[in-house]
C-alpha cells in the first residue's frame, strides 16, 4: 500500500476508528481519550510539507466518517504538516508526541487551545495511522 494514496487514506480511516492497541498505558489515559472522542466533530488535515499533499480526516460525533487525499486543506478546522523526514520517522515507530514537542509536526492553521483539548486523542490517532505498513 502506498503512502498518501486513496487506498492508504481509507486504511487510515479504519485505523483511527479502531484506535491503537491499548497496552502499556494506564486505563485512565484511555478513558480520557474516550471522553475526548465522544461527540467529537472536526476536520484534521495532515500534510507532507514538501509535496503539499494532505490527508483530510473528517470526524463526526466521535467517528471518522471520511478520509481523502487533497492538495487543498482549506476547509479543515486544523491543518498540520510535517516534513518527509518526520513522516518517515513516525512510520518507523517514532513517537508522535515527540514529533509535536520538537515541532516536527506543526499546526499551520487552527485554534491552538481547541486543538490541545483533545491532544492525546490526536496523538494516539496519529500513532494508529502511522503504524500502517506502507511503502513510499
Amino acid at each position, binding site marked *: 500500500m502506498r503512502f498518501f494514496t486513496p487506498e492508504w487514506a481509507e486504511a487510515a480511516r479504519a485505523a483511527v476508528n479502531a484506535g491503537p492497541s491499548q497496552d502499556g*498505558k*494506564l486505563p*485512565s*489515559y484511555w478513558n*480520557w*481519550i474516550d471522553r475526548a472522542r465522544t461527540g467529537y466533530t472536526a476536520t484534521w488535515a495532515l500534510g507532507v510539507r514538501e509535496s503539499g499533499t494532505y490527508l483530510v480526516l473528517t470526524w463526526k460525533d466521535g467517528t471518522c466518517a471520511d478520509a481523502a487525499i487533497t492538495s487543498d486543506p482549506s476547509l479543515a478546522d486544523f491543518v498540520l504538516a510535517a516534513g518527509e523526514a518526520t513522516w518517515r520517522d513516525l512510520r518507523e515507530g517514532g*513517537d508522535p*508526541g*515527540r514529533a*509535536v*514537542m*520538537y*515541532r516536527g509536526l*506543526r*499546526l499551520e492553521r487552527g485554534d*491552538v*487551545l*481547541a*486543538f*490541545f*483539548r483533545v*491532544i*492525546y486523542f490526536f*496523538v494516539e490517532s496519529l500513532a494508529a495511522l502511522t503504524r500502517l505498513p506502507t511503502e513510499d
Partner: protein
Amino acid sequence: MTELSNVADSDLRGIRDLDIDDVLAYVHRDLKRLPDYTELYKRYLRQRWDVYELDFSQDIVDWREGMSQEERDAFVGISAGFHHGERQVEVELPVFMLGGSEESKIYMSSQIEDEARHTVFFDRFYREVVGMPGDSVQEVLDASFEHVSETFVGPFGLLAYQADELRKDPEDPAARVRYGTTYFLWIEGVLALSVMKITLTYCRERGFLPGYYTGFTATCRDEARHVQFGMRFLRDSVQEDPRLLLQIHETLRTILAINGATSRRLALESLGWTPEEVRRLMIRQLHMKLVDVGIALPPDIQDMVARIEPELAGG
C-alpha cells in the same frame, strides 16, 4: 526572615544548606509586591551560578550504594519530565523575548540563559550520576526519553505550539498572555515548584545526592525570578486590558482539561509522597499565585482546579 535573606544571597556552597521550604517561601514572598523587570535582572546578575562548579562525586556513591532500585526508578521517572522540560522551556522562550518593553527583553535574556543552564544541569546529572549514554546533549535527552510520560506532550507540546503562534506576531497581547499562562503560571508556577518540593524534600530527608540538591535548589531560586516575572507580566497585562483575563481563563480550561490524563503510575510512595499530597501541593501552588496576583476564577475552572491530578514535569 533571616532564612530568606540567606536564600537571596547564598553562593553555591551556601545553597547546599538551604531548606527547600525556605526557597519556596522566597518565591512567594515577593508575589504580593512583584518586583519590576529591572530589579529581577539585577537579582539575576547577583544570583547566577556556575553549573560546572557542581560536584557530583558523592551523588554517584549515593546513587549506586545508598538508594534502592525502586528509589532510583522513581527518581529517574520524576526527573525525566524536568530534563526534557528544561530543554523545552529554553528553546520556546526566545520568541517571547521578541515582544514587550525593552526592560522585559533585557530581563528575558537572563531567563533564557537560566533555562539553558538548567538544561545543562540535568544533562550532567543524567550523564554523570544516572549513567545515561550519549556524547551530545540530544543523545542524553534521547536516552532518558523512555522515562518521560506520554502526557508530557500536553503542557509542553501546547507551549511549543503557542510559541509557534506567537512567532507569527510576537506583539499580539492575547497570544502573549495565553503563552504566559502556560509557561509562567502552570509549567513554572505549579508543575516545576511541585517537583522541586518532592525531590528536594526526599534528598534532604534521606541525606542523599548533595550535588543534585545544590543544583536543583539553585534552580528553584532562579524559578523565583521566573515566576515573579510571569505573575508581574500577567497582572500588568490584565490591568492594562481587563479582557485579557478571559485569555488566562481559556488557557487554564485547556490545561486543566488535559491534566486529568495519566498514562503511567508514578512511584511517588518510594520518595515518601502520596498522590493525594501531591494533588494538594499542586492546588496550593496554583492558588498562591492566583490569589497574590489577583486573578479570579469562574466556578467551572474552580471545579477543574479541585480535580487536579498529580503531574510531574517542569522547566
